[in-house]
């Protein structure tokens, strides 16, 4: 295949993925909008007004970046895991496997599809947050870069989960038991400086902490950790997970007998 043909195959996959999540918008775009609005109202307004300042900002201002990032993470992940597993389950993945589209194009297409949903939901949540607080971007480049990298990373995570999954139960285990706890413990609702030193050190093992804090830095200009170190860490994870996902795809894990 020529580069142009690769690009056509790649854009076809993305087009299909975007069609999929926009077709079922009531399942994909609406729920995070409602959930995040509730977070803004309950945690930001009602409870937040009694908490006072955190990191030099109102509690609402503090949690908005975290909540935006949380919605990007969960939606990037769940889009790829459900789409790719659904394609496995219905065997429509065979449409791609019999075609000359190389595996790296397939992987990139699904990941970018997940990124498209993650960013769409992120944009929706950002717009909603403007009803509750003002947002001023401290560093637009870091904000954009970290949200993009985080979305790619979790879309890759969703892909790997889908490769291993053998049932619909398997695609909900990781989000429920790993992703959600890591997100909640990743500094979305609090600064880790509030934790005892031991738990601060434990928190440093949580990759989501780096993403949430870097994103918060991009918007508010405050972070619990070094931003450059955080970006390099996320990049390292992306390279490792892309390699793993591609290796699984090349070996046909769960999709070729």
């Amino acid at each position, binding site marked *: 295949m020529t580069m142009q043909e690769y690009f056509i195959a790649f854009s076809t996959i993305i*087009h299909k993925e975007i069609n999929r999540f926009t077709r079922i918008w009531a399942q994909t775009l609406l729920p995070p909008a409602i959930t995040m609005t509730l977070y803004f109202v309950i945690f930001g307004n009602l409870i937040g007004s009694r908490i006072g300042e955190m990191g030099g900002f109102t509690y609402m201002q503090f949690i908005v970046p975290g909540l935006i990032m949380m919605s990007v993470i969960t939606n990037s992940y769940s889009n790829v895991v459900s789409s790719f597993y659904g394609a496995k389950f*219905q065997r*429509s993945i065979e449409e791609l496997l019999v075609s*000359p589209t190389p595996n790296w194009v397939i992987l990139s297409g699904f990941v970018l599809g997940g990124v498209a949903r993650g960013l769409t939901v992120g944009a929706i949540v950002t717009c909603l947050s403007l009803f509750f607080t003002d947002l001023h971007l401290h560093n637009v480049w870091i904000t954009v870069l970290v949200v993009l990298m985080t979305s790619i990373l979790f879309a890759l995570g969703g892909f790997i989960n889908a490769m291993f999954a053998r049932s619909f139960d398997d695609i909900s285990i990781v989000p429920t038991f790993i992703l959600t706890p890591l997100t909640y413990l990743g500094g979305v609702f609090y600064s880790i400086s509030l934790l005892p030193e031991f738990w601060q050190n434990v928190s440093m093992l949580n990759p989501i902490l780096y993403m949430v804090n870097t994103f918060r830095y991009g918007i508010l200009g405050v972070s619990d950790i070094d931003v450059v170190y955080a970006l390099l860490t996320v990049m390292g994870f992306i390279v490792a997970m892309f390699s793993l996902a591609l290796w699984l795809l090349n070996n046909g894990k769960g999709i070729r007998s």
Partner: protein
Amino acid sequence: MTQALSIRGLKKVYHNGFEALKGIDLDVEQGDFFALLGPNGAGKSTTLGIVSSLVNKSAGSVKILGVDIDQDFSKAKRALGVVPQEFNFNQFEKVYDIVVCQAGYYGIPRVEAKQRAEHYLKELGLWDKRHSAARMLSGGMKRRLMIARALVHDPKILILDEPTAGVDIELRRSMWEFMKKINAQGTTIILTTHYLEEAENLCRNIAIIDKGEIVQNTNMKSLLQQLNTETFILDIQTPLSKAPELNGFQTQWLDSNSFELQMQRGQHLNDAFALLTHQGIQISSMRTKSNRLEELFVELVEKDRQQDKNKVAV
């Protein structure tokens, strides 16, 4: 001329130790209409799965139009269109989108993909259903959708794995006509089917696979010549109380208006009719009891199984 498909020493052992293919060799010429037949679990779908990259092979080589799948699978896959046994499209997607997207996976620009999708959906009588979700189609329409999808990139070789399973007779015959047409236009067709009448009517060459081994690989004519016995059902005008006795032929009474006539290889129908005429029996109509290929298929598979039993006994 380069073979459309050339398989050498192809083996497949599944993770559970089951040996689905035991080193088969197979050649399909370009432009051929080729039947790959065999009982359930014989290895047909495994063979086609390896050719179309849905199954990993354990050993052996596969060349598609001279291109080794181990060397350049991407190029080899470009020549293939695959219609699998099971429905394998997204049931929630629209018919039109399924075909257009498939063209995209072959690098066909969207404008051209839409034109091709329109052409094949019209050819296969699905154009009116283009905006329907695939799950809303009938079984026959779903099969035709998979054919349209497999053809959208104009493959040189079309693999049809039981394309008419569960399809009514009228539709099956219209699909046969369509397959004949695209074969006449130069597309090599490799067909698996359990309807042996279908294989006999459509295919020029044939391979029979059983327990992972090719037990017969020849052209249809010479295969049918191997048929030792053929049974006909004859309807008679004047009722009879027993089957007529015809010297050299075996007959069996079915009812007062019909009987079976069994013919060995080398015997002629003319001789049987001469004997019947001599006895004053008028034949009003005649049909074969079962498809000729079916009889031969059963004979070959039974023979293969008997040989296996003998080996075990020894």
